[in-house]
């Protein structure tokens, strides 16, 4: 039923949108014009390709079409000062080659979209819009924001880029590690947003996890030698491999130990582990590589009992050294509890009370450990405390479920008494 030419346009949209926009922004210096002309190029393709055939290099065809459209627009708008300046730029000498040797315009686009002078929500939205070609409506829906508010967010971000003079280029070498971290932070936020967004089935809602992986693949293709990018790709693939087993049909979260491991996506796991090994072979571990290594420990354990908890605890130790945060310490406490027993974990949790006052997973973890020790009353109290802090429906359901289980089980006598 689908016309092959239409399918080719759809494929080109997926693969080439970001490249065409990125090139047009460099040529015109005008983000709105670049987006509009790219859109126009795709409309042209839909008209022409069914008759003329699909070009050998769809990307080049689209870039030329978008460029011609931009030139026409600029010629027509001659009287406007701003447009004239763009005309000059377009006909002026080409930019000198980038000192980093990277020539793909998409990298300039990514680093500009993720510039730390922009608010984080704007970085995410702008990256989805310009690089991946999501519509404003799709982005608004993905983040549960009204469409006009999302449109406003994009307008403000583009205005700041233009008026405050955020440069359209790859950062110089001394800024590159810091700025790459900023880009990866955007990708990670995107993935987590998709991972946590479980409220209600919304077939029109784009899969942010899949988009985050797509973006990381683009980054990995552009900077294949950066071990943290490779590590992040590994991490996301490993996490994503569990996407169909994390919830039961009622929308309740299923903890790792109860998931059906045969339904994990083993292709994704195999690819993730291959990327992880490539990254680790470079000998400069970073936070994403370590998190991927932890995810790999889980992904390769055939049964929950096979999980190498001492190794996971050791990896959390490394992670805590690199990125000290109370959440990392909480996860480490869980791993220690699994490796050395619940008492050892509970002792570590005590030190975190002051750092995580409103975080439901702290009392929830305490409750789980108390339950394992058979202290059901204390566990129930902790589950109730967690319920007062949990905000998403799946979290609340999970905690309620655990709490109900406890009230039907007799208290195990404390062996010490």
């Amino acid at each position: 039923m689908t016309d092959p030419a239409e399918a080719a346009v759809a494929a080109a949209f997926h693969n080439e949108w970001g490249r065409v926009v990125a090139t047009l922004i460099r040529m015109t210096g005008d983000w709105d014009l670049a987006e509009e002309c790219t859109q126009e190029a795709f409309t042209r393709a839909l008209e022409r390709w069914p008759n003329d055939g699909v070009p050998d290099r769809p990307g080049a065809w689209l870039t030329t079409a978008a460029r011609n459209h931009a030139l026409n627009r600029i010629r027509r708008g001659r009287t406007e000062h701003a447009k004239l300046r763009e005309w000059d730029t377009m006909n002026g000498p080409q930019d000198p080659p980038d000192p980093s040797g990277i020539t793909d315009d998409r990298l300039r686009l990514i680093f500009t979209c993720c510039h730390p002078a922009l608010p984080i929500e704007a970085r995410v939205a702008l990256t989805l819009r310009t690089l991946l070609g999501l519509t404003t409506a799709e982005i608004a829906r993905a983040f549960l924001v009204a469409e006009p508010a999302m449109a406003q967010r994009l307008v403000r971000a583009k205005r700041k880029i233009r008026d405050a003079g955020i440069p359209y280029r790859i950062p110089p070498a001394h800024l590159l590690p810091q700025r790459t971290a900023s880009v990866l932070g955007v990708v990670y936020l995107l993935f987590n947003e998709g991972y946590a967004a479980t409220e209600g089935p919304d077939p029109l809602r784009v899969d942010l996890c899949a988009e985050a992986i797509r973006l990381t693949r683009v980054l990995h293709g552009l900077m294949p030698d950066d071990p943290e990018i490779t590590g992040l790709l590994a991490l996301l693939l490993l996490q994503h491999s569990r996407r169909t087993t994390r919830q039961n049909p009622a929308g309740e979260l299923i903890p790792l130990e109860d998931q059906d491991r045969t339904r994990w996506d083993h292709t994704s796991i195999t690819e993730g582990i291959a990327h992880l090994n490539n990254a680790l072979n470079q000998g400069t571990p970073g936070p994403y590589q370590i998190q991927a290594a932890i995810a790999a420990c889980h992904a390769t354990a055939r049964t929950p009992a096979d999980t190498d908890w001492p190794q996971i605890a050791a990896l959390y130790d490394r992670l805590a050294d690199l990125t000290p945060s109370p959440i990392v310490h909480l996860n480490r406490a869980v791993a220690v509890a699994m490796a050395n027993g619940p008492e050892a974990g509970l002792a570590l949790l005590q030190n975190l009370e002051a750092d995580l006052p409103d975080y439901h997973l702290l009392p929830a973890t305490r409750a789980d450990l108390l339950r394992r020790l058979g202290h059901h009353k204390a566990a129930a109290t902790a589950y109730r405390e967690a319920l007062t802090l949990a905000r998403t429906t799946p979290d609340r359901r999970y905690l309620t479920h655990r709490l109900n289980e406890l009230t039907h089980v007799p208290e195990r006598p404390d062996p010490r008494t």
Partner: protein
Amino acid sequence: MKYMMLICGDENAELTADELAVLEEDTIDWVEKMDARSVRKLGSRLRPTDTATTIRVRDGETLMSDGPFTETKEQILGFDLIECADLEEALEIASKHPTAQRGSIEVRPLWEE
């Protein structure tokens, strides 16, 4: 592009004589370096806010009040007008200003067409 750097901080912060001397020396050093780079066009330290007078004209009437236009925890201590390639360079220049280490610096582009 031209940017205004608003140098902000707590004007009531109590600095020791030594700290003050170091701050002054570092500021002079920054000014000299940025003048030599030809990026700093104009700039000065400002007298404290108790020397400020705020004026408003409403319905043809001039209203005058003593002090800054609004009471805030940080005050504008000074300003520098710089001209450089882009925001990246402006932020690099601002981050080298010694007051960035204890106060904050707002970097704003001038409204130019």
